[in-house]
């Protein structure tokens, strides 16, 4: 489906400016749980602005390795078209719901298990068109792989949770799908697994994921068939059946590990981090990402990550035990000041997703 509702969305933002209404940007509503809960104050009413009405793939030339689509385009539509042409979104964005949109994937900036080997959502963004909080339409970057004209505002939008602008259109670099993909599963302890991941990751093995959970190391290999077959022998272990399903379940948090009523924490840490906590973890990104269900105080988990040079995000809660906890880790004072300065420039009246990233942005 292809519908251009640029004007309508711009009018909505301008009307909100006039009425001093705050806007909550919603795509497929699949990642509603992520980030701070949107603020409803007594003085300002919050209205929902839906981007799903603004959808469609506007250009795609497989040999250029670039796709451009409106923000409300369903991710599954983009992925299906790419698959037809034997290509993919290399950062494996999680959907978390049937109606997930490209805009939501970029605004949250989340990346899947391939990230340490292929790159993140922000790495693949080439250009964006946005509506600022002043109701102005602006374009940055473009459809070319290299572009250093002007500040990199396109990548600044990735993970900004819609607080700097409403995404209208996004250009993304895509890559060919690997010819062959297999996953080897090796039984070992967590300590052994972390050591093995470090060793593997320093070799030229054709890796595309390294994860660990419940006494098992999962090694995904991707590339030319001959290369994958040779690597399988070096890695050893058992070849997983239905591995594709396994990785999808991990990415979409449908894997049994994620069945818990406790708050889910996401710790992005250096590969060499040693996270010492009694709760069980799901370790992804070659040791660079820990998922932990824990009732512990937010400060304690934050401290655990920051002591290792990383940061913890309160990813998902199932009750209101953390109603007033900032979901994202605190920032250095000067860095925070730069955030506030940027917010003031892009959205001076604070109408776009106010508070979603940090409660005062």
């Amino acid at each position: 489906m292809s519908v251009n509702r640029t004007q309508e969305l711009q009018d909505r933002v301008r009307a909100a400016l006039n009425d001093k209404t705050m806007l909550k940007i919603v795509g497929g509503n699949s990642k509603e749980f992520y980030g701070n809960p949107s603020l409803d104050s007594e003085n300002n009413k919050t209205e929902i602005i839906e981007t799903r009405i603004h959808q469609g793939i506007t250009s795609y030339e497989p040999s250029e390795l670039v796709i451009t689509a409106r923000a409300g385009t369903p991710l599954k539509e983009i992925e299906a078209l790419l698959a037809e042409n034997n290509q993919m979104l290399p950062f494996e964005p999680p959907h978390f719901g049937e109606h997930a949109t490209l805009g939501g994937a970029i605004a949250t900036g989340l990346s899947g298990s391939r990230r340490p080997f292929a790159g993140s959502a922000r790495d693949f963004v080439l250009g964006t068109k946005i509506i600022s909080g002043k109701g102005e339409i602006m374009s940055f970057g473009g459809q070319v792989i290299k572009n250093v004209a002007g500040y990199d505002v396109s990548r600044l939008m990735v993970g900004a949770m819609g607080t700097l602008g409403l995404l209208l259109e996004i250009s993304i670099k895509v890559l060919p799908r690997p010819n062959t993909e297999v996953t080897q599963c090796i039984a070992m302890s967590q300590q052994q697994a972390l050591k093995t991941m470090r060793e593997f990751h320093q070799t030229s093995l054709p890796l595309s994921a390294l994860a660990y959970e419940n006494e098992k190391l999962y090694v995904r290999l991707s590339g030319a068939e001959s290369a994958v077959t040779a690597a399988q022998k070096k890695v050893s272990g058992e070849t997983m059946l239905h591995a594709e399903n396994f990785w999808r379940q991990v990415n979409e948090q449908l894997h049994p590990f994620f069945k818990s009523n406790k708050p889910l924490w996401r710790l992005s840490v250096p590969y060499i981090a040693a996270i010492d906590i009694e709760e069980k973890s799901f370790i992804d990104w070659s040791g660079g990402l820990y998922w932990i269900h824990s009732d512990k105080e937010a400060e304690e988990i934050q401290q655990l990550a920051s002591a290792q040079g990383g940061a913890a995000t309160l990813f998902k809660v199932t009750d209101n035990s953390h109603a007033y906890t900032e979901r994202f880790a605190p920032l250095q004072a000067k860095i925070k000041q730069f955030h506030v300065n940027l917010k003031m420039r892009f959205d001076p009246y604070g109408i776009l997703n106010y508070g979603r990233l940090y409660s005062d942005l």
Partner: protein
Amino acid sequence: MTSATKANRNSLRNKLHQVLPKSSILETEEQTRPYECDGLTAYQQKPWIVVLPDSIEQVQTILRLCFEEGVPVVARGAGTGLSGGALPLANGVLLSLAKFNRILDINPDNRSATVEPGVRNLAISQAAEEFNLYYAPDPSSQIACTIGGNVAENAGGVHCLKYGLTVHNILQLKVITIDGELITIGSQALDTPGYDLLALMTGSEGMLGVIVEVTVKLLPRPEQAQVILAAFDDVVKAGEAVAAIIAEGIIPAGLEMMDNPAIRAAEDYAHAGYPVDAEAILLCELDGTHEEVSEQIQFVQHLLKQKGATSLRTSANEAERLKIWLGRKSAFPAVGRISPDYYCMDGTIPRHQLPKILKDISELSKEYNLLVANVFHAGDGNLHPLILYDANIEGELERTEEFGGKILELCVEAGGAITGEHGVGKEKIDQMCVQFKSLELQIFHDIKHSFDSKELLNPGKAVPTLHRCAELGGMHVHNGLLSHPGLERF
């Protein structure tokens, strides 16, 4: 813009002499002359004063003093930049990071290296070699250019298509703000909370802060790398071969094209065995495991023949591979030998526009009566037309600049950009008015103000004033549409 007076500068000079050793301040004509330009020698300006700090504390003090006195400051690495980004200011401080040349840490387990900004690009890979790791971005000037400048310009190289630009290969920066505060942007982990200031800082051309430490990602060296040199009797066929390789799902480590004038110059200089009668050559490098490379080399050889390659040569060993690359990597100095001066452009285009752009450039070349040699990062659509000229001939530099400007406008029209990896600097500031509308340029100024409220960091570079674009607008009426129509004109 700064309103610093002579009194401010005198006061700053006195304070600088109090905090820095005498040897770290250069003021005389013969001392400051070497800093009058960067790699773009067409623009020259001696700085008012040069300072060479050797500690983070000294940089903090220098910036704080500049901030207090309202004196502008331009940071400089090795000065190899090609857009005049490090061009000094007559009334400003030139801050050289040359003494920040230590590799602080190579961490193979974290696959990262932490270095000072004055460390040369190639030195990082050399230091990581004992762990069989390397730093991927490889601008042609990598033996001389420094990592701080690479970050400031978001430098590329010949391996960008597969391995990305600088922005994809760094983890963390330590930056001094204009008021002297030390901040950490990014982290040693892959994701960092908040806005992606790491991306914003990369390629910001010294306009937002001064980088004093960089943590880069390191990659395992591929088991094998081989390059195919393919000759074509037509540049369009070479361009089609590029699209065919990528359409087959192969991402080469490097995919470069050169046209006949560039081939001749490079061969004459580097003796790499290039076929000098070819209209175009492609260099296609494949890397990975032994099995993968062997499989892909055969496939690509076959494909290139199918697409009309007139001859093929494949490197059989590392020495031969490096020799084939030497011709390409020395293309700029090679062209420098056949012409008194050359002017290197850096536009990018969607790849399928290549035949049209090359035809247009060749027509402009006739119109301006100036020869052009084309070097092209074909995989990622980044063109480097080298315009040959003689600065001693009255008016030739001006004609060259006008010709170059037209090439960049063609790139924008084709859906590309005015700079792929060299930056805007002083050189392409007018073309920014073609690339962006007033609203975008205004937000760029707003971003600068968010970090540098007094506009003291490298002022006058990278982003033109709206006023300047309005004045130029009269000259750039395109399809009857005036650019920046909302601005008052004179």
